[in-house]
């Protein structure tokens, strides 16, 4: 995400403008996480969904009980 885009989002969702130094600090964090998750998500199996997590916990429980 470019700094200008970041600032546009900040301006649209926050009532108070975000300071430049603050944007610089957050930008690196957000871009790093965005890139990591985007790349990992490209390898997700077709049909994956958030509820798979709960199903996995339950299946582990029943498998071991």
């Amino acid at each position: 995400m470019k700094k200008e885009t970041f600032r546009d989002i900040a301006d649209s969702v926050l009532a108070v403008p975000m300071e430049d130094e603050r944007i610089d600090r957050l930008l690196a964090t957000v871009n790093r996480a965005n890139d990591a998750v985007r790349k990992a998500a490209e390898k997700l199996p077709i049909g994956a969904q958030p509820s798979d997590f709960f199903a996995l916990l339950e299946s582990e429980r029943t498998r071991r009980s």
Partner: protein
Amino acid sequence: MTASRLADLSMIETAAAIAKGEITSEAATRSVLDRLKTIGPKVNCVIAIEEDEAMAAARVADAERAKGQLRGPLHGVPMGHKDLLFRKGKVVTSGAKITRGFVAPTTATVLERLEAAGAIYVAALHLAEFARSPTGHNEHFGPCRNPWNLDHVTGGSSSGSGAAVAARLVPAALGSDTGGSIRLPASICGVVGLMPTQTRVSRAGVMPLSWSMDTVGPMARDARDCARLLSIIAGADPRDLTTSHAPVPDYEKAMPTSLKGLRVGVPRRFYYDPVTPEVGKALDESLRVFRDVGAVITDTDVPDMALIDEVQHIVRECEAATVHGRWLRSRPKDFADQVRSRTEPGLFYTATRYLEALDLRAPIVAEFLAKAFGDNDILHLPGVPIPVPTIAETTTGGPEAIAKMIRLVGHCTRHINFLGLPAIAVPCGFSASGLPIAFQLIGRPFGEATLLGAADRYQAVTDWRRRAPAIATGAA
């Protein structure tokens, strides 16, 4: 029974003494109230005390016992809890300026279950602002102080729960954990803290931070107390539809009584990277104890923890920014800067990125179970990899230095919430400066009985839990 002897009793011992008529609930409750009022301010672990209501409840408990009626396994036992558990009609601060006058519209299911088991609510305990700090940082209520050395942090966010149990002010307390908030104060204050499997305990009536990872659990001086508390608070709840319908065992009975053959994996890579020699020595000694009682210790590896770090960050911050969005817009200056800074990134991820992060959860957990656990029953990790920092070390030096310290303190805890696995922090020694050191045990899904049993057997052959800070004994 003397006041100091009363304070020394564990939660189960307190319950047993009340049930047998060796002490009254009124005496136990009075003792807890006195200590909360005298020692509590020194540690700054108390937000509100409910003296009149607690004493009235204690007298009712004693009258019921005199008639042979015991409500449950905590009949007449006084307890305090993290001040983000709702109680209908009562102010619940969540440690924040913004919600300082918030009157809860409902009561947390976990508190209803404790009350049904006979427990008495005595005090609302300190926490980090909106449960948002692994060090326990709170600018609005001031720092909660470590009972072992008041210049040091308690860990957070369940700061008051950890400090109050360690200082023998309450026999046990509930906390909540989204990235280490039970396990860090337990590790840093020298008590036991259990984070159950995600879905095991209801979060209804608990101020949320991140719905996908918030977990409520017990903190006490020993694993057996945690086992009893978990048996009471766990189980399906129609008010929290994410809760599992799996049967809840009696964890005190379900705990293994022998660790012979228990397979313990030690993931040295990543988890031990920042461990200091002093902490490492205590951890190695705890592994020797496990080996001596029959456990089989093997080194193991972990998947790409950097990826898990980023994924859990997106989930937590998107959900936190949703919870706090209205206040980030309308009252940004009423957040401490540490808290605001940690929450704002959640405003900048797209919805699809957040959902991708949630979609990644199942495959990442499956990979972690296969790679880190393999054939192991549990994993053994550091609680906190570095010596307990001072309050000054976590609040000065600028945003980058503070962020680095926050990441270091939570290095061994925050990923586990994303994985949804149960974990327990157990004290295993002290640094040269007299601050606690702890290990964590991580279990498979719904493996709480194994974790509690392993912690209980460890505590049976070590004496760390018997040590009390000087402030608890009146020596400070």
